[in-house]
C-alpha cells in the first residue's frame, strides 16, 4: 500500500519510472519491488536523528557537569573541613606550646624552687653565705714569710702576705661598729630659732 502510494506520488510528480533490470542468472524469479526514496525526507530524518543525539549529548553534558560540580564541591568542602581541622589543631598546638613554655618557666622559677625547698623539703635559707676567695700568696708563702722575718715585722707581715691585712686593720672599723649604739643628732626645723641640720655620717 505504501509502495503504491509512493509510485503514485512519483508518477504525479512526472518522474520517469525506471525499468527493472533483467536478472539473467535467475530468469524465472520475481523481480523485487523498488521504492523511490525522497532525499529531502531522508535528510530531514537524519537531521532529526542528529538533533536528538545532540540533545542527548547536551543533557548528558549538563548532568555530567552537575555531577562533576557536585563532586568537586564535595571535595572542596571535604578539603576545607580538613583545612579547618588542621587549622584548629595548629591553633591548639600553638596554645599548648605557649602553655608548656609558661609551665616550664613557672617550674624553673627560683620563687617556686625556694617555696618547695622551704615548705615541702624543710630546707632553710642560710643566714649568710661564706664565699672562698682565692688569695695570691705572691712568689711563695715561705719566701714572703722569710722576707717578713728579715724585715722584723714578724706576724703582721705574715698576715699581710696571706691576704689578711684588711681584717687586721684598724681602729676605724671599731668606730663604724660603734655607730649603731649612738643616736645621731636630729634636725630641729620646727620651733627653733637656731635650727640645726644634721646629716649623719653615713
Amino acid at each position, binding site marked *: 500500500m505504501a509502495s503504491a502510494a509512493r509510485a503514485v506520488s512519483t508518477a504525479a510528480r512526472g518522474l520517469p519510472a525506471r525499468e527493472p533490470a533483467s536478472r539473467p542468472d535467475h530468469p524465472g524469479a520475481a523481480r523485487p519491488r523498488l521504492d523511490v526514496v525522497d532525499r529531502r525526507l531522508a535528510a530531514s530524518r537524519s537531521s532529526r536523528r542528529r538533533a536528538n543525539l545532540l540533545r542527548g549529548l547536551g543533557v548528558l553534558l549538563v548532568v555530567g557537569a552537575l555531577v562533576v560540580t557536585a563532586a568537586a564541591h564535595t571535595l572542596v568542602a571535604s578539603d576545607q573541613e580538613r583545612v579547618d581541622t588542621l587549622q584548629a589543631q595548629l591553633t591548639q598546638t600553638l*596554645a599548648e606550646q605557649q602553655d608548656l613554655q609558661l609551665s616550664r618557666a613557672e617550674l624553673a622559677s627560683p620563687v617556686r624552687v625556694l617555696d618547695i625547698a622551704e615548705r615541702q623539703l624543710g630546707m632553710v635559707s642560710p643566714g649568710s653565705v661564706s664565699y672562698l676567695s682565692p*688569695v695570691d700568696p705572691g712568689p711563695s708563702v715561705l719566701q714572703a714569710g722569710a722576707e717578713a722575718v728579715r724585715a722584723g715585722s714578724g706576724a703582721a707581715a705574715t698576715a699581710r702576705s696571706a691576704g689578711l691585712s684588711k681584717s687586721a686593720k684598724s681602729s*676605724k672599723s671599731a668606730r663604724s661598729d660603734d655607730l649603731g649604739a649612738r643616736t645621731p643628732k636630729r634636725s*630641729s626645723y620646727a620651733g627653733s630659732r637656731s635650727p640645726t641640720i644634721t*646629716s649623719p655620717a*653615713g
Partner: protein
Amino acid sequence: MVAIAALALSGLAARLVQIQGVDAVHYASYGAREVYQRVALPALRGAVYDRSGNLIAASSPRVDVVADDYLVTGPKAGLNRLASILGLSVPALRAKLSQHSGYVPLAYQVSGTVEQRVADLDLPYLSFAPDVARTDPDGNLFSPILGIVGFSGKGLSGLEYLKNSLLAGSPGSEVVPTGPNGQGLPGTPTDVVAARQGTSLVLSLDEPLQFEVTTDLSRQIKATDATGGVAIVEDRRTGGILAMVDLVTEPDGDVVPSTQNLAVTSVYQPGSVMKLVTISGALQEGLIAPSSVFTVPDEITLGGWTFDDADYHPTEQLTATKILAESSNIGTIEIAHLLGADRLSHFLRDLGFGEPTGLQWPGETVGIVPSPSEPGTWSASSMGAVPIGTGEAVSPLQILDAYNAVANGGEFIPPRLVEATVSANGVEHVLPVQHERRVLSPETVSELLPMLEQVTEDGTATAARIPGYVVAGKTGTAQIPSTTGLGYQSDAWSATFVGFAPAGNPALTTLIMLSHTDLIYGGLASAPVFSAIMRYALRHFDIAPTGGQGLSSGSSALDGP
C-alpha cells in the same frame, strides 16, 4: 475564576522575579548581615625575657565561656557539672543564667582543658569567645617593673604600659556564621584577617640576680624593721639594669613587691651620698686635691640654720679624702663654698640630678633639685643643705647613675632596661647602648676612686667590703621629712649605700636604700646588703677577684657570647 487565578499567579511570579532577580543582591546582603558577624581575633601579646632568655612574662590563648541565658530552657541540666568545672557555686551560676541579657560571660581566660570539659557538656546555650591571658611565671618577682595588663589586653602600668605599642601587636578579625542569638554556627570563617603577634622584649634584667636581690633586701627590711627598700644593680659599661627591686612592708609585717617602681617614681632626701657631687666638682675644677687639708669645726651656721656633723668633735684638720670617707658634713660644706653655688648646681645637673633618667618610665620623677638660677628654690642655707644631701629630693636610680658615671671613668650612660626586641617571626634586633656623655675627666676619676675606696677601707662603710675585691662607694643617711608639714618625722631615717666593684675596673654598680629603718646608718643598714648582693653578683657573672688590690682585666659573663 480562571482570570483571578491567573492574576494571582502573575502577581506571585512578578514578586518572585523581584525578589530573586531585581532585589536579589539587597536581600542576599541583608541575609548575610543577619547570619554572618565579624568577630575580633585577639593578638598574642609579645613575651618578655630576661637577658638569658628566661621567660618572665608571656601571653597564651584562652577563651571566655559565654552563655546565652535566653536559650536556657526547662530544667537547667548540667548546671552542677558546669559550676564545678568553672569553679562557681551553683546558686551563683543560676543567678548569672537568670540575667535576661542574652550575653553572660561565665568565666574569663579559661585554659584549653577547661574549655574542652565545658564543650563536652554539650550545653546549647554556651559558646566560647577568644581571649588572651597574660602570665608572669615568676609571680610578683618582677611585678613593679613589668606592671599590669588590663582585661582589654592593654598595658596599664610599668613596662607593659611603656612598651605597649610594641608588645600589643595588632588584632585580627574573621566573619563567622551565627545564630539569631549570637551563638556560633557550624561553618568556615571567611574574610579572615590574621592577628599579628606583638614584638617580644629582651630585658637587661637577670632573673637569678633579681631573686637574690629580692631575698637579701627582704631579709634586711625585716631585720631592721624598715617600711620598705629599693635595690638596683647596674651593668657599669652599658647602663643595663640587671636587677631592680622595690619592696614594701605590709601592715601584717609581710614584705612584698611594691605596686610601683619606686626606684624611678619616688624621691627621697638622700643624705651624704650627694657629697659625691661637691667633691667630684671641686676635684674637676682643680680646687682641691685628695690630700688637701681643711680645718673642720663641729658646726657651721648658714642663713640662720646651723649645720653640724653627726658626732661631736673638736675642730680638726681633715683631708678631702677623710672628709669623704668619714662623711663630714662641715668639711663638705667648706668644699662646696670653694666650688660655689653655680658650679655646684652645674655638676648636680651634669650627674643627672633634676633630669629624666632616660628610661622614660611612666610616672618617673626628676626630683626636686634647687638651683641658684631659680631664685624661689635657692636660699641662704642651700649652700649648707644641698652639698650634704638634705636640700634636695632625688630618685634612687638618679643616685645610682651618678655613681655609675664615676665607675665608668667619668662618662655618664643613661640606664636602660630593654636590650633587644624580637619580632613575631623571630628576628632579633639588638638596641644600641645609649649615647654616653663625659661629665668628669679621667684625671678627676682617678683621684676620686681612691677616695671612694677609702669609705669602705676605713670609713663609714666597712660592712660593704667583699673579700677578694676592692669596693668603692658612699653611705647616705637622712631623716625623713614630715608628710604633714615642715620638719622631719621623729626617729624616721633612710639609709643608703651606693658603690661599685671591683673598684679598679668596675663591672657592677649597686644601690641599696632602706626606708624607716631602725638601724640608722647607711653603713650599718644598707652596706651589709650591698656586700651580700655583690658577693653573689660578682660570682654569678664570673668577675674575677682582684685580690683586694689591682685591676681585673679578664672577661666576665656580662660580656655575653
